[in-house]
């Protein structure tokens, strides 16, 4: 049972790394970067 839990956990890590790699391949990191570099004034309360 303990070995099974360990295996499931490792499998989860592999799945998450694959998800991340898939996202990187789709260029999502560039979108995240672009969004983070633009200051959203309304998000920090600066809007009339």
């Amino acid at each position, binding site marked *: 049972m303990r070995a099974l839990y360990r295996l499931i956990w490792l499998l989860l890590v592999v799945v998450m790394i694959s998800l991340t790699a898939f*996202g990187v391949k789709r260029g999502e990191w560039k979108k995240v970067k672009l969004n983070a570099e633009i200051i959203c004034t309304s*998000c920090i*309360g600066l809007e009339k």
Partner: protein
Amino acid sequence: MRKSSAPPVSGLRNKRKYRYWGLERLRFLSQLSGLAITNLYLIHLRWLPFPVMNCYACPLATFACPIGSLQYAIDAGFFPFYLLGVIFISGLIFGRVTCGWLCPFGFIQDLLYKIPTRKFTFPRYLSYGKYFFLLIFVLLLPFLFRQPIFCKICPVGTLEGGIPWPIIEPQFRSLIGWNYFLKITILVGIIVLSILFSRPFCKAMCPLGALLSFFNRFSFLRVEVKKEACRRCALCATRCPQGIVIYEEEGHPDCIGCLKCKVFDAVEMKVGVPDKLLGLKKGVKKDG
């Protein structure tokens, strides 16, 4: 509201006292490093959503805010594989330990709580609030209105972006309106509550904490109870800033791994691939 009944550390044996202060000093240094790393200014790694609450509108910010990025993905209409992958990998490895050891806003709340005044215990039912904020303000409302709604109330953004920008750039001052004052009011409320309660934002409002809390039961770093050493005296609960009775609730979603309970011999930080799901079995047998 009940007054917190934490016993003074001086009441503990010397060994425990030194262990407590040693760990506390280490955590303080780690939190200080977290504050410095997330606000380096010169290095921009804004493609990386770092799993702590640190606003990327901050002029000094090094990383992207995971919650802001998640709302952006919902707004832009793409499924955030990369973002969720990074957050979930962090959750699988650290659980909520990043909240207790690295988060800058958690650190600020910890410092505020050190102000000597009357302290209160945070009502447990309010800790479900963070799931409400995650579901409604981070997922549902941004989907419906195509806007980062949580950012509009987030006190972290006010502190790290909303206050510095009008000071640095005078043209931003003309944009100050009712929303700005709403955000300032929320921030002041959180500051006042942080003096009276331990980490109120983390407990009741933090959507990142809500996301990471699901991993506390099976993360690589986790707090466990040595069942043979535990006497169920509940002293660990009196030290816990989250008010958790650790021997009854191993892997509790609110546990931030601060290790204040480590001062007692029965609690340990486990490092390694988990071989069980914490919290599903009954705890240790009661003494006597």
